[in-house]
Each structure stands twice: as structure tokens, then as C-alpha cells.
């Protein structure tokens, strides 16, 4: 996920959908609520994010704040199991993929209508797939259609048309749609849980959206008339102030408990905490690490998301002596990770043993681990002829990411640990955006550095492929064996076939040690004492239909 630091959606709805499927009932189950608070609470749920949404047409979005709102309005074919990143039925009750991985047949949820009354059926599904595939050239840039480009690789037109993964969609009958791909894409189902690939009303799109407009993120559809199947409808978007969502009483799943949900933007984390304390908001995302303990003491609820991220210390092999594996191992042995975590990350943060968190497919419990052993580190540096070497250490300032809450503090601890084994550290601080990113990823003018990533959905390639898929300025190494292994794994038709390969790759990477994975910091949400039923999701698939607020 990009700029606004927010994770992905599907928990509650996924659960609701599963429940409905399992019990074999449909709408009659509506009154039954999963959250435990079965009373209709009514009232308003007022939630603060860190920025305004960019657009309410999720296909043109890639930021967490846009997704936060679109998750309430829209649903995709696929959701996630509550509290996990694993794909689960949502608008599709099930699916079957052919052996070659090329065709997937989706069975659709019955009795679903879009907010404008348009029926949700196989034709609507195909209309959405065709819309994405046939995006005009003007919308084929990463700022507009980042997720489609990253995952489906090409459109019907344009220079990358030959690489397009999508081929066609057919409506077999009202409730069965078949999607055909040009090449296997094991992450296909998981990718469909991204809000960017939500189902949108074809009627409303026809009438109010213009994909060819100079700026489709700002069209009438994208700002006033987003039309999905979700538990909330858009009431109004008062630019610069708030998005107001109204309960969708005709929702096919568990109808929301609150009458309306309002999302406001408060940029500063301390200001969000203060607003919660004074009761102006009911809850907020991206709790500053320093606010967690005080808020809990004051009686507020702090909800920790399972981390779906990784923070690492990268080592640029284009700079000596980092090209020497022994030096990289020595650095790994010099790091006391629990100390780094306790000094600069929220409670509950898990030390990392590899470049993926453990809930990601392909996590390997048996990778090589580099124990904290400063004496060994010193010895190895001496053996490598690098004792007392000077190493440039790049770190960002003025930023807090879910995977990197306090980079300055993290830097300080690591610096003293490396100096303790005799290395000379030359600190280089840069403002996060764009200076730091530019330096790390646009040039080879950096030594060791702090960086990380929050995953979008459960696909190992979304971590490993993103980091090590090709030669890059960030790492400064050329390892065709690793690149080939990643590309081979990506090309397999099913996650089951991919899993052993990714396990091997994780082990291989930890032997090669391009950097030291440090931690999976826990991102937190905070709520007032009266809020109930908020289900966290590691990929931020958080839908608010089970949320209640006692007045």
C-alpha cells in the first residue's frame, strides 16, 4: 500500500458471508449479528483517519484513506477471513479454478443489489472486469491505476497490452461468471480482495463516471455517486471536512448497527489522540506509539492489528565493505533486536526472522538466524579485514510509518550497537519524502539504511518480489538465481504449488542476507469506551457494520 500509511478490507463481511453460506440461509439471518452486541445501537460512529480520501472510486485509488471509505460502500467478489489476510467468500460464495490456473468460475451471492437498485449478477461482474481491462490510455498510469497495473500487468490497449494477464469474462448464467486469464496468476483470488477491485454498479458507472476524463478521480461518480453493494451508502463528501456515510437498510448481509458513520481527517497523531480524549471522535487509526500506554491507562480501548509489514536494515552492496557476506553477517550478529524494539517500537512488536511476517504464505520457520553476539561480530569483521570500517548509515526524518514508527530512535539504537563492535558510523539523515526515498531507490549513494513495507494482500510476491524481484539501486546486487527463483514462483498457477518455493526462497535470502529483517511493528487503533464490535484486520479489511456506539 502506498502513501497514506493504511492497511486492506474484508473481515466482517467475509465472516458474515461465510456464516450465511454455512447455514445455507440468506436474508433471514440478517437480525443475527456476529459482533455479540445484537442491539441496534443507532447514532453516529465518528472515526478519524490521517488524511482525506483521494477519491471514492476505489479503482482509481491506492491510498489507505480512500480504501477505508470505499470498504464501507463497496464489496469485492473476494473478502478476507476476519482478523487474517486469507481470502474468503464475499460477493462470490465460492469459486473453482481450472488445473492450468487459467479459468476461474465464480458462484455469486444471490439477492444482492447495488445501492442504485441495479441487480448484482454475472453480467455486472463481467462489466467490472471489462471496465478495468478497457481503461483508456489516459488512465493507464500508476498514479491512477496502480493496483491494476501491478497485478494485471497490462490493459487491452497500450504498450503493455501483450503482458496483460486478463483475457475475458463470460456470464454463464445469472449467478455464475467465468474469468479467463492469459497466464496463470496464483495471487488472482487474493488480489480480488483489494478494494481497487470492488464491484461497482455498471448503471451508475455508465451514467456518472468518465474513465477517459482528464481526472476521473474527481468526476461526479468519484465524489458524489460511488455505487456499490456495501453496508453503507455515501450521504455526502464535504471536501476538506468529512465523509458522511448512511446505513444501507437493504444490505444483503448484516445491516449496520449505527445510523451513520462519519470519517474525518486529522493529520497529526497527537491531535487525533486529543480529539478522542475530548470525545469529539469515537475512534481513530494510526495511534502514535507514545500514545498507546497513556490511552489504555485512561480507559480507552486500543486495538492492535496483527502486523502485516516488515522493517529491515538494508545493506547496499554497491558500497564496500557491504559487498562482503561476512561483513553483512557480522552486522546481523551485532544487532540486539529486542533492544531495538523496546527502544523504538510499540509493545507487542514481533522480532523478524525473515522478510515476510509469519501470516504470509511461504513463511519459513527454519531460516538461518543470526543471534546477537557482539564478540562474534567483532571477530568476523576482523576476519573480513573490515574492523573499524566506516559505514554510511542512512535514515529518514519527519516520518512515521506503520512499519517504522520512530526511525530516528531506531537509528540511534542500531548506531550504538554497531559502534560497540568497532564500526565507524557516518549518519546521513534525509527528509522522508521525497529526499530519502529518492536517495535510497533512485541512486546508489547510500550505505546501510532503514526501510520496510506494509503488504496489501496475502501474496508473498507482494513482499519478496517487491524487494528482491530485480536488480535495484536499493540493494546494489545482481543475483540472477534469486531473481529467477522469484519469477518462477510467481508464474505458478496456485498458492499451494508456490508455497514450497517461497519457503526455499526465504531460506535462501536469509543465507544471502541482503539486509537484516528487524521487526514487524504492531499498528494500533484507538476507540472510546462506548465503542463495540470493531474487528481489526491485518490488511485493513475493516467494515463497520458490526460497530456500535452507546450514546
Amino acid at each position, binding site marked *: 500500500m502506498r*502513501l497514506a500509511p493504511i492497511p486492506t478490507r474484508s473481515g466482517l463481511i467475509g465472516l458474515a458471508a461465510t456464516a450465511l453460506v454455512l447455514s445455507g440461509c440468506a436474508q433471514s439471518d440478517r437480525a443475527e449479528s456476529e459482533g455479540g452486541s445484537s442491539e441496534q445501537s443507532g447514532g453516529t460512529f465518528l472515526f478519524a483517519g490521517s488524511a482525506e480520501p483521494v477519491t471514492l472510486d476505489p479503482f482509481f485509488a491506492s491510498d489507505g484513506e480512500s480504501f477505508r471509505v470505499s470498504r464501507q460502500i463497496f464489496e469485492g467478489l473476494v473478502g478476507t477471513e476476519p482478523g487474517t489476510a486469507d481470502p474468503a467468500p464475499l460477493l462470490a460464495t465460492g469459486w473453482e479454478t481450472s488445473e492450468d490456473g487459467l479459468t476461474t468460475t465464480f458462484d455469486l451471492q444471490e439477492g444482492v443489489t447495488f445501492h442504485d437498485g441495479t441487480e448484482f449478477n454475472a453480467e455486472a461482474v463481467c462489466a467490472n472486469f471489462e471496465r478495468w481491462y478497457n481503461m483508456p490510455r489516459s488512465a493507464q498510469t500508476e498514479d491512477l491505476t496502480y493496483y491494476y497495473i501491478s497485478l494485471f500487468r497490462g490493459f487491452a490497449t497500450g504498450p503493455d497490452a501483450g503482458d496483460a494477464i486478463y483475457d475475458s469474462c463470460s456470464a454463464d448464467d445469472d449467478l455464475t461468471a467465468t474469468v479467463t486469464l492469459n497466464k496463470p496468476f496464483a495471487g488472482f483470488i487474493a488480489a480480488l480482495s483489494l478494494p481497487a477491485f470492488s464491484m461497482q454498479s455498471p448503471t451508475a458507472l455508465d451514467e456518472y463516471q468518465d474513465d477517459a476524463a482528464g481526472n476521473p478521480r474527481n468526476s461526479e461518480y468519484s465524489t458524489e455517486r460511488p455505487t456499490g453493494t456495501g453496508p453503507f451508502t455515501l450521504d455526502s463528501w464535504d471536501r476538506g471536512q468529512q465523509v458522511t456515510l448512511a446505513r444501507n437498510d437493504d444490505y444483503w448481509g448484516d445491516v449496520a448497527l449505527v445510523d451513520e458513520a462519519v470519517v474525518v481527517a486529522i493529520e497529526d497523531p*497527537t491531535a487525533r489522540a486529543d480529539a478522542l480524549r475530548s470525545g469529539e471522535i469515537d475512534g481513530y487509526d494510526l495511534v502514535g506509539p507514545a500514545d498507546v500506554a497513556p490511552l489504555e491507562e485512561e480507559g480507552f480501548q486500543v486495538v492492535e492489528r496483527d502486523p502485516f509489514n516488515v522493517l529491515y536494515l538494508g545493506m547496499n552492496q554497491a558500497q564496500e565493505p557491504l559487498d562482503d557476506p561476512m561483513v553483512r553477517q557480522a552486522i546481523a550478529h551485532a544487532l540486539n533486536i529486542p533492544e531495538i524494539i523496546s527502544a523504538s517500537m510499540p509493545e507487542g512488536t514481533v522480532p523478524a526472522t525473515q522478510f515476510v511476517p509469519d501470516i504470509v504464505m511461504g513463511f519459513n520457520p527454519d531460516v538461518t538466524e543470526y543471534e546477537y553476539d557482539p564478540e562474534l561480530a567483532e571477530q568476523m569483521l576482523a576476519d573480513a579485514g573490515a574492523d573499524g570500517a566506516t559505514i554510511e548509515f542512512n535514515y529518514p526524518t519527519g516520518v512515521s510509518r506503520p512499519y517504522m514508527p520512530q526511525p530516528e530512535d531506531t537509528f540511534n539504537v542500531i548506531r550504538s550497537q554497531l559502534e560497540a563492535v568497532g564500526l565507524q558510523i557516518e549518519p546521513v539523515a534525509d527528509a522522508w519524502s*521525497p529526499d530519502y526515498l*529518492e536517495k535510497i531507490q*533512485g541512486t546508489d549513494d547510500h550505505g546501510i539504511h532503514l526501510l520496510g513495507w506494509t503488504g496489501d494482500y496475502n501474496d508473498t510476491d507482494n513482499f519478496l518480489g517487491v524487494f528482491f524481484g530485480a536488480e535495484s539501486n536499493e540493494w546494489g546486487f545482481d543475483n540472477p538465481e534469486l531473481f529467477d527463483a522469484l519469477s518462477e514462483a510467481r508464474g505458478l498457477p496456485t498458492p499451494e504449488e508456490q508455497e514450497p518455493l517461497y519457503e526455499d526462497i526465504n531460506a535462501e535470502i536469509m543465507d544471502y542476507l541482503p539486509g537484516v529483517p528487524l521487526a514487524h511493528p504492531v499498528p494500533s487503533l484507538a476507540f472510546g469506551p462506548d465503542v463495540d464490535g470493531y474487528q481489526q484486520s491485518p490488511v485493513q479489511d475493516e467494515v463497520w457494520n458490526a460497530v456500535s456506539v452507546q450514546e
Partner: protein
Amino acid sequence: MLRFALRRLALMVPVLFGLSVLLFAWVRALPGDPARSLLGERATPEAIVAVNEAYGFDQPLLQQYLTYVKALLQGDFGSSIQSGADVLTTFGDRFPATVELALTAMLFAIVVGVPLGYLAARNQGRLLDTAVVSGSLLGVATPVFFLAILLKLVFADWLGWLPTALRQDPRIDATHITNFYVLDGFLTREWDAAWDAMLHLALPAIALGTIPLAIIVRITRASVAEVLHEDYVRTAESKGLSRGTISRRHVLRNALLPVVTTIGLQAGLLLSGAVLTETVFGFNGIGSYLFQAISTRDFPVLQGFIIFIAVIYSLINLVVDLLYGVIDPRVRVS
């Protein structure tokens, strides 16, 4: 007077033109690439090139400038790279918030500052004077963010009287016509909405207004003290005029000139102070937006907003100059 105003307005044209050139060069000279900001920490080099092409950032600088000015002359300020939102519309959405805040802060500073300064001058050397002078020293020296924390602690946490974030309680279904929320409340007769907006303005306005307040107190005090020693005041006193008449007709009128100048200058500072205040109080005006635009290298937003601010600043200065004429007729002659 009218000719004076028109001449000043005409002068703004070359000033703004020069500003647009400087601004364009300066904004582009900032290190870093807006495409990088936009695409985040995992952007591929190809994607960055593609976005730069899409926005024309790969063109020669002069070409880019001409394109920009051409659009500008047609009233098109472009749109944000980050969000795609139209710069002019965003400014319209957010500027009222900042104006509302700055005006309230200024009102607070004037209404409290001028009388305090006057009283201090009238009681020079006494306890009241000492208290006001040291208080204003403290006011000038207190950083806005610290004051903000203090205000939140006292008025929100302890007393629970005032809200600490946003411009209005979103639960109030207020109608917004002008985006000046207090004004909107009056226009629509939604008194609770107006009252709520005023409560939300209180803490940020005090935080933002404290430094101008302290400065106004000091200037007023010094200026009044000086005027009190003028011959014409002594003459008025010996004529047997009442103290109130002397104050109104001779002292304040003469002493206010530097105060008005100061207020005019403060208006510019208020806009920059608003950046911090708006962030700390989650008050979504142009200040916080501008701050984001700088850190993301959102060129069109930066250029557009700074040009708007320059126009507004020039207009405020013009008004201040015209006010001189009203307060002191001697200025009109020259």
C-alpha cells in the same frame, strides 16, 4: 484615494508576475521528485518516468513555465498531483477555514491587546504595567505548539469546556454555504451550528493569536507612552479637556498608527502561524494543506496557493495603507 488604490492594484501585476517566475524556479529547485512522493517507497523507475511524462515534468523548464502561465491566464491553476483535486476548488474549500481562524485570532489579539497596552502605558512603572509587560514577553516567547498543549490540557482535559480538533462537530448536520462555518450558522439560522463552530475556534484562535497579542500590547504601550509626552497632549491637558476626550481625540488616534501597521504585518505572520496551529488542532485549512504539499512536492498546489496568499497579502497591505488615511489625514496629503 481611489487613484492611489488603483495605482497600487496595478503595481501588483508586475509583482505577481515576478513572483510567479521566482516561485516556479524555486519550487522546481527543491530536491526530490513529485512522482516519487506520489508513488511511494516501492515505485519502479519506469512508473516514475511514466508519471513525470504524464504531468509534463520531463519537458524543458521554460516550456513547463509557459504552459503553466498560459493555463493561469485562463484561470486554470491546475490540479494536485497527489489527489488530482482542482487547486482553485481546494483553495476555495479550505481558505475560509484559515480566514475564519486568522480573523478570530486577530480579533482576540486586538480586543485584548490594545486596551492592555493602553492601560499599561497609562500606569507606567506600576504593578499593572510590570505584569502586562512581563506577560507579553512570555507571550512572544511561548512556542505555538507548547501553548496548544497547555490550552488543550486546561480547557479540554481538566475543564472539559472546549473541543480540541476539527472545525465543527460532524454529528451536527450543519448546512454550509460559504464554508465560513460561523457565518453559515447565522445565515441558515442554525444557531447550534454557529455556536459549535465558535467553540471549535476558541483554542486554535487563542494559540494563534497569542504572539500577535503580545506584540500588539508592546507596540500599543510604547506608542501611547510616547504620545502621552507630546506637547499637544500637554496643551490639551492645560486647556482643561477631560481625560477621556484627550485619550480618544489626541492620544489613541495618534498612537494607533504604528499599531495598525503592526496588525497589517501580523496578518502575513498569521498565515504562516496557521500552518502549525491548524496541524496541532486538526483544523483543516490551507495551512495544513500547504504543509503536506511541500513535503510531497505537489508543485501545482504549492504554486497556486502561494500566489493566492501573495495576492491576499498584497490586498491586506493595501487596506492597511488606506486605513492610514482614515486614521491620520496627514497621510492622505502626501
